[in-house]
């Protein structure tokens, strides 16, 4: 084995360059591996794909389709009655849940603190009688939606049961391409 002293100067330069390249390559790999997983990926267990969120209503509701803007108005408490003048009861999943993350991101466009402050402000200005009602599981959400006339809730599309009424949003169901709540 040749010792470092016996290696010619030119050879030393080549070896040093290749070592440097190798070190830079290793550093790049280390940086890529340390990139944090996105929030939505964390919510969906790191699968990289967000699950669709279905909007469900009471089975006796006459509404079958809402535009995204109408849905937003309802969820923001700006519309408190359906067209048939029945009261809208908004059911919101408690933290932490993947469907809540999607709704906060896509519909409310707020984080948790902003969401809380938003409803406190509306109550303080007497614009609403009460905030959204909290549900603690998909089963609770669907049971309550079935029991409360005029209620609306959201669950993961995979949790929808056969006798639950799912709304179309902009004409699309959760399984359709281009569904806005994913």
């Amino acid at each position, binding site marked *: 084995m040749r010792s470092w002293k016996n290696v010619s100067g030119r050879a030393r330069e080549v070896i040093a360059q290749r070592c440097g390249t190798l070190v830079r390559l290793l550093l790049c790999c280390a940086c890529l591996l340390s990139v944090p997983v996105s929030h939505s990926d964390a919510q969906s267990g790191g699968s990289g794909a967000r699950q669709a969120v279905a909007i469900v209503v009471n089975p006796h509701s006459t509404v079958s389709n809402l535009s995204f803007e109408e849905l937003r108005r309802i969820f923001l408490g700006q519309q408190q009655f359906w067209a048939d003048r029945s*009261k809208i009861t908004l059911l919101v999943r*408690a933290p932490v849940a993947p469907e809540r993350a999607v709704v906060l991101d896509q519909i409310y466009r707020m984080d948790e603190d902003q969401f809380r402050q938003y409803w406190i402000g509306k109550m303080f200005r007497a614009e*609403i009688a009460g905030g959204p009602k*909290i*549900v603690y599981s998909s*089963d609770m959400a669907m*049971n309550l939606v079935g029991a409360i006339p005029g*209620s609306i809730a959201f669950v993961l599309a995979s949790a929808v049961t056969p006798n639950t009424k799912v709304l179309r949003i902009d004409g699309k169901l959760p399984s359709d391409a281009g569904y806005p709540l994913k």
Partner: protein
Amino acid sequence: MRKPAWLAEVIVQSIAVTVSILLALWVDQWKQRRAARELATESMSNFVTEIRQNEARVDDILLYHEGLRSILQQAEKSHAIRTQAEFQSSIGIDGLRPPFLLQTAWQTATLTGALTHLDYETVRVLSLTYTLQDRFREDSRAGFQSIMQTSNFKPGDADLAVRSADNYLREVVTSENDLHATYEQAEQVLSSKLTAMGVAQKTDSAHTPPPPQPTPGQ
């Protein structure tokens, strides 16, 4: 005997001073009555606003409590809830809380003395309304605390907690319906008195459904 000249002057001045004092007292009384009337009007308007807000809060929570009751009744029949965690997941404890009802108008009227300027019937109606509200709050608080007692959850069996929550909600829903009826009556009495006093009232559009849309062709 002729009366001295100064006597007439004294009499005139005495009368003038007396009339001035009486006039000042009358003006002062008029100002106090006007201030009292304004305080009473403002107080009654505040009561109407607060009663409407409380009525809206009761209406808002009533449907939700009735929905929770139906879930509890199903759970009681099926014995589906066995642990505290399942109870929390199926019912949740926060939803069982009664609505937060305002009483700032009553406290303000008491502290400012506005109640002394209201007529007997109005004070009677308000006193009844806020007494019922206080009783609802006290009864709800006591019932709520009894639901989540550890003794209600036996290993693998939460029937006692479910039954306790169902009984509690039954009482709460009944009380909420009673409160709603009381608020309606109180609002009618106060609104008619304000109308009789010539006070314009704001309509509470935030908590009332919009008017029905005319159908095409009408």
